[in-house]
């Protein structure tokens, strides 16, 4: 089973997907994807995951870059499958931990009291430039987490979208590149209708995303969506009724 793959490479810049941290579900496994962006000799790790995945991810990342060279670790939101390992990663290297300002007050519960090590994101997001390229933290609040961000990498044109675009499937991560949007629509629908807060947020997020030239959506669970499938997903998500729009289902 392939659980690690380079999804972008141009000599100076590289994006890698790891997907081996499975969350057991009643009917299926929920695979968790972690991502690593390497630009020359520095790197950013995206949603490193739970405490249980720390050891394995540490080894995998070490194969690509010395852990000490991690410059940032980005946590899209505070769920344990995203941020459970903050404490251990904060000990392992000097990287700055990028999280929403809203989660700052909970950082000590994850084992972090040195806020100098934290890069708190304002609600509207932030941009980190490197040369002509940039990383843009795009607000994705209430999709599903109340303080949540997607990360756009202008070099690879990949949007690391956290739970947006996540599909619960037996196939996962790098193995599913090539899955078409239509094939995933049903699993996407179930997950997004239940987890996302409402169409108003979907629309606002898609509007922000469209300000950038996104060619691939890389979610935290399930398959990547590329090219036309990425565009189809954005159009579908923009119109999706979910969460509060379907309140009678839940109350």
């Amino acid at each position, binding site marked *: 089973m392939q659980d690690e793959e380079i999804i972008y490479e141009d000599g100076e810049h590289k994006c890698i997907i790891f997907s081996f941290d499975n969350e057991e579900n009643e009917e299926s496994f929920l695979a968790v994807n972690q991502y690593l962006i390497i630009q020359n000799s520095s790197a950013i790790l995206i949603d490193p995951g739970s405490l249980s995945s720390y050891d394995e991810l540490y080894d995998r990342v070490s194969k690509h870059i010395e852990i000490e060279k991690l410059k940032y670790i980005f946590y899209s939101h505070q769920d344990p499958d995203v941020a459970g390992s903050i404490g251990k990663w904060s000990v392992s290297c000097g990287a700055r931990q990028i999280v929403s300002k809203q989660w700052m007050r909970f950082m000590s519960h994850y084992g972090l009291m*040195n806020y100098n090590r934290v890069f708190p994101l304002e609600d*509207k997001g932030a941009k980190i430039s490197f040369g002509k390229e940039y990383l843009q933290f795009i607000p994705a609040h209430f999709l599903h987490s109340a303080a949540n961000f997607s990360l756009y990498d202008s070099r690879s044109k990949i949007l690391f979208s956290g739970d947006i675009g996540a599909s619960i499937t037996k196939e996962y991560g790098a193995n599913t590149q090539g899955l078409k949007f239509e094939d995933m629509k049903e699993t996407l629908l179930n997950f997004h209708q239940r987890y996302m807060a409402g169409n108003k947020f979907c629309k606002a997020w898609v509007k922000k995303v469209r300000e950038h030239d996104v060619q691939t959506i890389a979610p935290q669970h399930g398959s990547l969506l590329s090219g036309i499938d990425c565009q189809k997903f954005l159009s579908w998500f923009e119109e999706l009724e979910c969460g509060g729009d379907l309140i009678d289902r839940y109350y």
Partner: protein
Amino acid sequence: MEEKNSYKKLARLAKDYELLYIEDNAGLQKQALKIFKKFFTNVIVASDGEEGLELFKKYYPKIVITDIKMPDMSGLDMASKIKKLQNDTKIIITSAFNEKEYLLRSIDIGISKYLKKPIPIGELVDTLIEVITQIQNEKNRELFESYMKDTFEYQDIILILIQKDDVLMINPKCLVFFAQEDLGSFKDFFKDFSKQLLPHDNFLYEKEGQNWLEVIRENSNKLFNAKLRDKDGKIRHFVLKSTKIPKKDDYFILSFDDITELGLLREEDPNLSDEEKQEEERLKMINLLHVLKRNRSKIRLFNSYKGLSISNTASIEEVMENQIKIKTTYLQQRAIHIDKKTTIESELLPKALECDMLSINFETQIVELNNFRYIPTLPSNQKFVRVMPESNSIVEIYYDAQKLTTDLHIIDISLEGCNISLKSLPAGLNIDSELFFKLKLGTDKSLLNLDTKGRVARIKELKDEFRVVALFELKNDQKKQLVDYIAKRQMALIREFKGLQNAR
């Protein structure tokens, strides 16, 4: 071509505004309406003054265009009533008459423009552009002034309100310093502003791959040093900051605080005595704290609890001759209370500034600090998390195959190495000497056995002990074990610290 451009400009400007149009001549009304609808998303129409006033009360449009002579209420009577309701409404009068009486009354009421019928379309478009620009400028001025009051307490700062790359507003100090006539000429001047920022080590200026405006915008509230020439060609030293305006996308205030008088760029005078030098240092330090305060710049505080770094931001509330008052978080206050001191960092300070706690008030969140001294190390440079091991830890250190027999213990340990306290130093121990560590750290349940080589990186002699920093040479699995130990110890120390915090 020019006409076409002004049409486009009006279309762009007018799309967010509502227009109230009052005209009793049905034919004229229909004709004009056709034109207005090309520019405004919403045009409200009335046929006399009375109806116009009612509609105004309902929609409160920012712009009103009205005829003068109408059956029930004249255009001027209506305009006067509208002005009383909402003084900043822009009213344009259209009239076939050019009578002096009408003109004088229009001035009294505060009419924005008086247009003579028949109105050439070009003139109408230009008038509308002028009026909308006026509305926007007033709005920007309001925003600028209200925000200025909240953000800066020092009138001598140069201030520029920008949206993306456009200058929207400036203060008089800005015009005077850059020898510009008005906002229009400053806008042109600002297009090439990067040339004004002179190169200097660690200062902000335009260089390859670095657009100064982008850098400052992306680092809202961070202070930058910059060097500019004044109109007489003299070099001035400024502190630059961009302040993001909340809830307004892409709006920033750029501030330039002239700190030339602090003499930070001046070479040290070799004729000064040591005492004079010290006094000058102290004055510079206090002045820098003043600059930080008047720019409402956040400082960072560093403390540690049993090796664990605790850091938060703080604001300077008051600067006195030999002490300052700062406001910080409760967590940091607790850490300062335990340490009885703290260390301040700011991009403006040349080094980290250590100071003692004079008093602390948990209710007002204020801490008074004094006895300032620069220290050689920056706490923010500390890369790895450090923790003090449990007191029952067993530490054996070997040098030259001999176990050290002096009293020793580990002050703190990190993934990189450890900081050891020794009563005496073994003969021959030097920087780069090889040590061997046999460590048993932690509780019975989670014991870390670590046998590893290390190398001496620093030796420091204190009053009655030595401090030795050694760097470990760890294997990969040992690294992971140590990460595990430090992460657990870190959590335990946080719990312990919070226990103390709750026990106050």
